[in-house]
């Protein structure tokens, strides 16, 4: 099925796409048919920058287990570093 439901997150950072590195501004997350992964449905995440056009995109298609493992890995990585060190404004959080 096509879920038609998309979650959005504003993001601040960089990603590497077909044309090299670019500034990413938005992440869209949705569960739907993948383009490439060999499954009926996957958790699809697009990191993009609408100002730079459709090709400014870093895409992943993950199984549900992989997506949840990724969340835990991100939380683990942040927990292993000084709080706020990767913030956009580290001084304000230190």
């Amino acid at each position, binding site marked *: *099925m*096509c*879920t*038609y*439901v*998309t979650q*959005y997150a504003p993001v601040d950072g960089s990603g590497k796409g077909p044309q090299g590195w670019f500034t990413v501004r*938005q992440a*869209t997350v*949705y569960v*739907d*048919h*993948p*383009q490439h992964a*060999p*499954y*009926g449905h996957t958790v699809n995440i*697009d990191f*993009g920058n*609408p100002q730079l*056009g*459709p*090709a400014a*995109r870093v*895409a992943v298609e993950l199984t549900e287990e992989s997506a949840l493992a990724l969340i835990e890995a991100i939380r683990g990585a942040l927990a292993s570093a000084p709080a706020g060190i990767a913030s956009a404004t580290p001084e304000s959080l230190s």
Partner: protein
Amino acid sequence: MSDAMRAETVMIEGHQGDQIEAYSARPVADTPVGGVVVIHHMPGYDEATKEMVRRFAANGYAAVCPNLYWRDAPGASPDDAAAVVRAGGGVPQDRLLGDLAGAAAYLRAQPNSNGKAGIIGHCSGGRQAFLAACLLDFDAAVDCYGAFVAAPPPPGLPIAMEPLLPLADGLSCPLLGLFGADDKNPPPSETEILDAELTRLGKTFEFHTYEGAGHAFFAVDRPSYRPEAAVDGWRRIFDWYGRYLAK
């Protein structure tokens, strides 16, 4: 009779007269032929859909697939365009219908058109094919596992999707429905509701539900592919269009 065909990207007139990209394949002989509008699925105007367009041409129909994402991402790769449309909230329904009507007009305006046009879609395109068959002028329609036609999304799924059942009275043409018994969207219980309503309304239709097949059983590039169901499904599609479009 020659079996030569011409397959190419063209520009057609879509909603509100906009020029949009489309993929066209058609027999080149002068013999009159019916037309088929092919709706690409939500993942985009992709190679698999273009292959279906060529398959219709190889079987004696003029076919065209409008790029429903053209305005949002002209020239982008199909997957990037689909991502842009997804991020933007999807395709507005009036624009979709305008583009599908434009595709039918394009087919009927071809020099060797017999004046008839059908429509087909898979998955989200199956729902859209039913919608178009109810609101636009077509001569035959095929809905391949379109969900949320007869029933709203189940509780717990935050999807704003109105069922199309109230539109069924306006179904303008014979409808072929091809479904998988193991599909959850639409499940057999939903297609049975649509079956009952079309029967009550006296519409011309046939539904076939394949055992051992789930959603997307026609998709040869996905693990959901079920060759027995797909082969028989294609046979039924060409039988349906042979009855209602070819003559």
